[in-house]
């Protein structure tokens, strides 16, 4: 019964929240109806102090102390406005975060702008239950990255962004939410120390000994391993020469889902991820064979990303969202 009540309250809150803060990817300007403000504990203590002074004024019949107590209350009121104003008409836009491996912290770029003459101070941003990022002074524009811890592979949907401020003196706490359907792709966590992969022709370990048959130098390309840069030659040349090898390095490798039948799904994906990273690092062209998906062997960053994305989304349509107050 109680649980049911709780659930219906949660549903009601959810509906209310989505109505008030409709999800939108475009920039949101914080207007009057999107900012909430309440006195903080310090604010209540301040009011109490002012009331004590007022009681003193009444008991000792001190007219000037009345005036002072009322000025304090007025000041509290001015602070209320100022705290509210600190958030008012901020223009916020969240963007999709660059991909991360599961367990890493995704960083969602946030773009803040305002065109008023007032600078904004001491703003704090955080996704629910996550580390908050604060900004001291924003003259007109600021960019920052809001951290969100990823848990498992797949799409990570950002929950509502919570932003708040206690500025100027901490008597009031103003806050608002930014409901922006931004997301981040989370790649499977690569396995630590994966076993070497089985090559098709000689079943030989290839990770450690791939650099045997030196074939020559070629200019650096994005995605090349730092270990393969010919530093000695680099000192004498303008470009960055990279050693390339003839042996198995040239032999394309297709990492197959079926190869690892002895493992569980997630463990398989972890190992495949680790292999892809290793292959990219040593420069072995690699492909991926998943049930229902084949990626031809290739090298380079875009290829790596499409492979990792395929692994991230393999058999995983459910989008994950960190549990929050509203969603």
């Amino acid at each position, binding site marked *: 019964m109680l649980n049911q009540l709780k659930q219906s309250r949660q549903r009601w809150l959810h509906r209310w929240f989505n109505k008030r803060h409709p999800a939108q990817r475009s920039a949101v300007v914080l207007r009057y109806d999107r900012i909430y403000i309440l006195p903080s504990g310090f604010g209540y203590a301040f009011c109490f102090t002012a009331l*004590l002074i007022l009681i003193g*004024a009444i008991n000792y019949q001190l007219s000037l102390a009345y005036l*002072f107590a*009322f000025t304090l209350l007025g000041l509290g009121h001015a602070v209320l406005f100022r705290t509210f104003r600190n958030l008012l008409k901020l223009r916020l836009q969240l963007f999709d975060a660059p991909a991360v491996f599961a367990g890493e912290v995704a960083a969602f770029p946030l773009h803040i702008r305002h065109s008023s003459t007032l600078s904004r101070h001491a703003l704090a941003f955080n996704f629910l239950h996550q580390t908050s990022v604060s900004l001291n002074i924003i003259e007109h524009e600021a960019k920052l990255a809001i951290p969100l811890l990823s848990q498992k592979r797949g799409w990570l949907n950002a929950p509502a962004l919570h932003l708040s401020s206690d*500025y100027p003196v901490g008597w009031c706490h103003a806050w608002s939410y930014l409901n922006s359907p931004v997301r981040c792709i989370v790649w499977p966590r690569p396995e630590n120390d994966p076993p070497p992969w089985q090559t098709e022709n000689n079943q030989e370990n290839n990770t450690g000994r791939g650099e045997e048959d030196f074939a020559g130098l070629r200019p650096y390309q994005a995605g090349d391993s730092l270990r393969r840069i010919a530093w000695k030659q680099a000192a004498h040349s303008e470009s960055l020469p990279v050693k390339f090898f003839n042996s198995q390095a040239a032999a394309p490798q297709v990492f197959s889902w079926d190869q690892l039948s002895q493992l569980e799904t997630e463990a398989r994906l972890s190992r495949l991820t680790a292999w892809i990273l290793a292959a990219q690092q040593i420069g072995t062209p690699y492909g991926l064979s998943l049930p229902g998906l084949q990626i031809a062997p290739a090298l380079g960053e875009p290829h790596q990303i499409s492979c990792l994305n395929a692994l991230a989304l393999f058999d995983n349509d459910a989008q994950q969202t960190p549990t929050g107050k509203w969603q």
Partner: protein
Amino acid sequence: MNTTLARKPTQYLIATQALVLAPHSLQFSPWLTLVLASLLLWRAWIAYSGKTLPPAFFSLILSSGLFFLIWLDYQTLIGRQGGVATLACLATVKLFETRTQRDIKVISLLAYFLVGAGFLSVSSSWILGWAGFAMLAITGQLIQWQSLQTWQLMSKQLIYMLFEAIPFAIFLFVFFPRIPPLWSMPDEQTVGRTGLSDEMRPGDFSKLARDESVAFRVEFENTLPKMSARYWRGPVFDLFDGEAWLQMPVNIAGGPAITARGPVMNYTMTMEPHNLNWLLALDIPGTLPDSALLSNRLQAVNNTPISQRQRYRLSSFLLWRTSDDDTIKSALQLPQNGNPQARKLAASWRALSPPERVKQGLNFLTHGHFSYTLQPPLNKGPNGIDTFLFKNKQGFCEHYASSFTFLMRAAGIPSRVVAGYQGGEWNSRGKYLIVRQANAHAWSEVWLAQSGWQRVDPTAVIAPSRINNGPDINLSQADSLPFMEGAPPEWIHNLRLNWDSLINGWNQWVIGYDSRRQIQLFKKLGIPDALSGEFILRMALASSLILALLFLLATRNTAIKRDPASRIWQRFSRQLARKGCLQLPHEGPLAFSLRASSQLPQHHDVIHYITQQYIAARYGKDTAALIRLRKAVRHYTHNQIKQSLL
């Protein structure tokens, strides 16, 4: 939480604390001021040098030690003096415990409270200025904890905040109901009083004669009594110990019955605090405020010391008769020995009727070559009155009142010394009378069987102008004032009167704003009852209006201000948009103008010109270009409208 807080805000905090404690330290015992100052300096040094704070038990030991000393010194840890001292110690010791933001908050709240307590220890108006400044300093220091910024930016914000706070504060000040004290405060020692004292020693009055500070101000409801009738009655001295005149314990019972023989004067006094119980009234007081009673010696006694400026309404009789009195016997008391010459002189009048004896006494003073001076030779010792009457013959009101009363008593006439003020200066601008400490005066009162107690002022016989013209003119004749020859010039005098009426207005409408004043004001505003539903409704409306206005004021700067050049440019681009040439979001003005001129070749020249002016005005901050831009766009728009009408 970090154990060491940021250094800069900490320094602000310490400076603020020093500012808050400064006026209090004037009231503290010297040792406490010294201890607090050295603690603050030490703490400032720690903050400056970045050393670590002493361990937590240090503050515990320090504060309990200080509390013990305060208790030894003040006998209490609460109340007006002990309480403020305790709070000041608490706030200062707490500075050694600034480990978390929470400590800062506690110190800040203590500081606000100490500023509020400042109104208890200092009653002058400058305390308001200090309180306002200290309040802003504490608040500014809190801002620094939130976001460290330059002091210019911070003080600008603080001043705006103050301006936003003041309307609300004034509104509450005027309309918040003034209620009587919620509970009675512990009795306080009297401190730092000026004015009359509760005994009369030689030299007391000549000290006061140079004191230009205001004792009280009086507004009369009907006519102003003439100078020679303005005797403001204060303490009555019945007991002569050979040197000083002392008061008998105040007693309410057994006083005389008073019959008025003249008009009743109604008036309102604004009394400066003197920390003693008596009120001053024109003699003889008729009706008194509720808080006061008339003693058996016809002195108005308040039930609490006058420790703040206070207004009260009184009525008095200028001519009177008293009868039936228990105090007559004590009015004949004299010490056993001393002043044989004076006793002998008085004894020679014993055969005369009582009124004749009084006349003889005054005659003796009139014809004895007495003179009135502010700097009399010393008439001290057990035979001081003899020395004065027969040797020095120079004195001040206290000498005359004292000697005359002595003579009368020795002659068998019940008499006593009354201290108070005489005269007063009319402020025609403010329509009230100012009575200063320099108006302090002492006179005698004799009891005669037919008329009861009557005033006899021996000084009036010696120096009639002192009574008729007030002390200033008299002083300029007798002794030069220490700072200038003669009376001040007219304009300085006028300036002083204007300034005083300003001060008086402030005193009455701000410092003296109490329930009576509030009711008076409400009546003027046509508000019949401060607790009626209609009034509360109106107040609610008025306060929400004030708050709404303040809100607009506070948020006005958040409105997006567009540059004038870009406003005009927008107008122009709207015109082009009508012709099917829309500026795209990514397009800068130059790219757009190139595209627009190729789409609208007939407007090529004007588009080019306007774009050039816009770029100059917007990015080159060229004001002349802005004017040209405005003109060109207006011209273009007009032409377009004309064409569309044709």
